[in-house]
């Protein structure tokens, strides 16, 4: 008898796609290491990563670093929860952040001096999970009877209403009392929440919460991984691929959708409660649309439907913005990213190098021309290199780089107007460029486009980091959907029309 054939590693993936993936993964020591890692049993990999997460606080004692990494765990948990709804069941849940907020507010009301209720944390967390599920069912059941699109808009409306209620439920007139009832504290939020406390042990330091979040992430990952391997997971995926066929095969699609929706809501709720306990306060603005968009960007970047993917996406989008806080450093990263993308993404490689040289040359020529014709138009660099005594070598290097860039690019006297004009020009040009067919002209057009991009970066984008971040996220969502819908680690799906 023949030995049983090993199942293909990615069950359900098209053979051709698997071949392409294999070709892509191989080669170089990174590919080999990746293959070695992928060959380990899933539980080893899981425990290994958990261990790495667990020893970080023993090595790093900075509260700031722990806070950032803890936030990454928090968002990874949220992304994993959202992944159940979006990735497995294929439902667009735009009120996810409101469930997160609902959990936070429920915890705040159940364990703070606001109504003078102080429940034990395990009970509060259980109630939070229950409330999350209940609201998930309540919202999901009317909208899921129809196409998924209704769910998108109903949940979006729920998110909006949640923030509005959070802002306005601080002066609710009730018939049984003369003074208005204050439920949410309005824009002042609710403060002085109890820390999480289990059986006599109270979580107080950043490191405590770091571990709490890590443990919660591990639990959620484990449960959802098991759930996805069970018949629920198969049913969800079948439903996502073709709801009608799934229903025709006798699957209770509506119940399955509701279950995934409620699971996501419960995960979001408990995560919100931990967040509230960590911050010891809740405010309506923690749960607005921007956080929702951020979360979606994490899930889409990592790969919809892939647990390691969405966790990675959450990690990237939490840590990278922290790195970009200093304008000098963000400049270095921006130009390095551009240069690396040019060299690695454009084939043949010499074309990438040629474009790089072309952009630098174009900048120099323009600068010299303008200085010769109308020297009054440009201004000297605004950055100054700090003295040796007060700054590290790295800081000074990035500042010198900034000066260099500002000598290279045309720095107009009025950066706002010029930058805005350039931005208005740049966006349609970039969009049109992205949709062009590959050709020599397309590569050549990169030279003025990249110069324009650097110009806009220097004049406007670096001055408005918050807006730039959202612009990048918006672009990321569109571009990923068009060119790489599977994200970084997601499996490519073969569409059968």
């Amino acid at each position, binding site marked *: 008898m023949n030995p049983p054939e090993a199942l293909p590693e990615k069950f359900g993936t098209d053979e051709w796609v698997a071949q392409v993936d294999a070709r892509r993964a191989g080669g170089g020591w990174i590919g080999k290491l990746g293959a070695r890692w992928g060959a380990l049993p899933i539980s080893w990999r899981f425990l290994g990563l958990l261990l790495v997460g667990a020893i970080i606080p023993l090595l790093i004692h900075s509260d700031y670093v722990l806070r950032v990494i803890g936030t990454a765990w928090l968002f990874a948990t949220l992304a994993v929860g959202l992944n159940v709804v979006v990735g497995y069941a294929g439902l667009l849940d735009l009120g996810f952040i409101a469930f997160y907020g609902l959990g936070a507010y429920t915890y705040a009301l159940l364990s703070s001096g606001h109504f003078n209720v102080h429940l034990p944390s395990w009970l509060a967390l259980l109630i939070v999970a229950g409330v999350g599920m209940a609201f998930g069912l309540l919202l999901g059941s009317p909208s899921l009877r129809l196409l998924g699109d209704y769910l998108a*808009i109903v949940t979006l409306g729920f998110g909006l209403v949640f923030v509005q209620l959070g802002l306005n439920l601080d002066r609710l007139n009730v018939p049984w009392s003369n003074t208005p009832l204050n439920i949410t504290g309005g824009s002042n939020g609710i403060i002085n929440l109890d820390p999480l406390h289990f059986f006599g042990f109270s979580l107080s330091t950043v490191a405590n919460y770091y571990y709490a979040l890590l443990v919660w992430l591990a639990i959620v990952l484990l449960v959802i991984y098991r759930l996805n391997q069970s018949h629920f997971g198969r049913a969800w995926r079948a439903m996502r691929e073709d709801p009608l066929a799934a229903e025709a095969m006798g699957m209770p699609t509506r119940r399955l959708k509701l279950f995934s929706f409620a699971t996501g809501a419960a995960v979001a709720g408990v995560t919100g409660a931990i967040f509230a306990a960590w911050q010891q306060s809740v405010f309506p603005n923690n749960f607005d649309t921007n956080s929702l968009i951020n979360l979606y960007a994490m899930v889409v970047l990592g790969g919809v439907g892939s647990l390691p993917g969405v966790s990675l996406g959450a990690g990237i989008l939490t840590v990278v913005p922290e790195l970009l806080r200093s304008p000098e450093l963000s400049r270095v990263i921006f130009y390095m990213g551009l240069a690396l993308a040019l060299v690695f993404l454009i084939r043949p490689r010499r074309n990438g190098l040629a474009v790089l040289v072309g952009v630098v040359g174009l900048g120099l020529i323009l600068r010299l021309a303008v200085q010769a014709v109308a020297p009054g138009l440009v201004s000297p660099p605004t950055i100054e290199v700090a003295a040796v005594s007060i700054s590290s070598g790295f800081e000074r290097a990035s500042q010198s780089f900034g000066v260099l860039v500002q000598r290279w690019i045309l720095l107009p006297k009025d950066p706002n107007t010029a930058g805005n004009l350039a931005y208005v020009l740049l966006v349609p040009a970039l969009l049109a460029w992205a949709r062009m067919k590959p050709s020599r002209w397309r590569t050549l057009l990169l030279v003025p486009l990249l110069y324009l991009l650097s110009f806009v970066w220097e004049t406007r984008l670096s001055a408005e980091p918050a807006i730039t971040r*959202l612009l990048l996220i*918006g672009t990321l969502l569109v571009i990923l959907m068009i060119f790489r819908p599977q994200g970084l680690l997601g499996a490519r*799906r073969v569409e059968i029309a």
Partner: protein
Amino acid sequence: MAQFLSQAPQQIVNGLTLGSVYALIALGYSMVYGILQLLNFAHGDVYMVGAFIGFGVLTVFLPDAGPLLPAALVILLMLVAAMIGCGFLGVAIEWFAYRPLRNAPRIAPLISALGMSILLQNSVQLTLTAQFRVYHTEKLIPISAGVDLGPAHLSLVRVLVIGSAIVMMVGLAYLVNRTRLGRAMRAVALDREAAAMMGVNVDQVIVLTFFIGSALAGGSGVLTGLVFGRIWHTMGFNAGLKGFTAAVIGGIGNIPGAMLGGLLIGLLEAFATGFISSTYSDVIVFVVLILFLLVRPRGLLGATGAQKV
């Protein structure tokens, strides 16, 4: 009760004004949904861009000294500029963000639409800042102008807004029901493949649908500015949500339904603001949406057709 009766006529006027704005937004949603089954999240932001284009035209033609042209001409110019600008914006959005995803899973264009919406909002915030802009309508149309209908005052601006909305809707109804293009649009909405086989240029129809829907949203943005004064970069989010609610209540994909739904939502919001509380008017509209989905999920005028496989 007496207070209700005395205020009701004024609230009806307010509701009709608001409703005609929502109806115009709902039409764009409904038309695109009818043809592509796509929820165009960026539609609300197209409306916002329309309001800003109108503001730009107004600023050019209305220096402090007074209007350069007769007031009616300035308003017409604002409307036309916003409609054409937004029409092209809509076409560009379709071409870039939706067309490559025509055969992708349903969720992909939704996420791409979300990304477009963020992109539009933040582009406006970057270039024009987040501050409120104010339409100085009073320099074009005196506030006192209008007719007194006993208990209600119908100002000229509101007449203008409701009138322009009616003109646009009648034009759209004519286009959809009486012209070749309209017939092609209805055919594509009914069955895209069969329409293509009958020689309808489907891509062209879709582009024109986006143009018309976005132009209506742009016009509605200008009307909002004229009657309510303030515009800002995130105004499209809320208005888009209301417009979509209106489209659902009327029966999504159904053009008279979108008009009816818009007017109903406008009246509901005006009455909720006038008699209950302005802070909770959004909450009330949203609850009505959910109740509606429970009771009559296909909307007031929507057909209860079976889904084709």
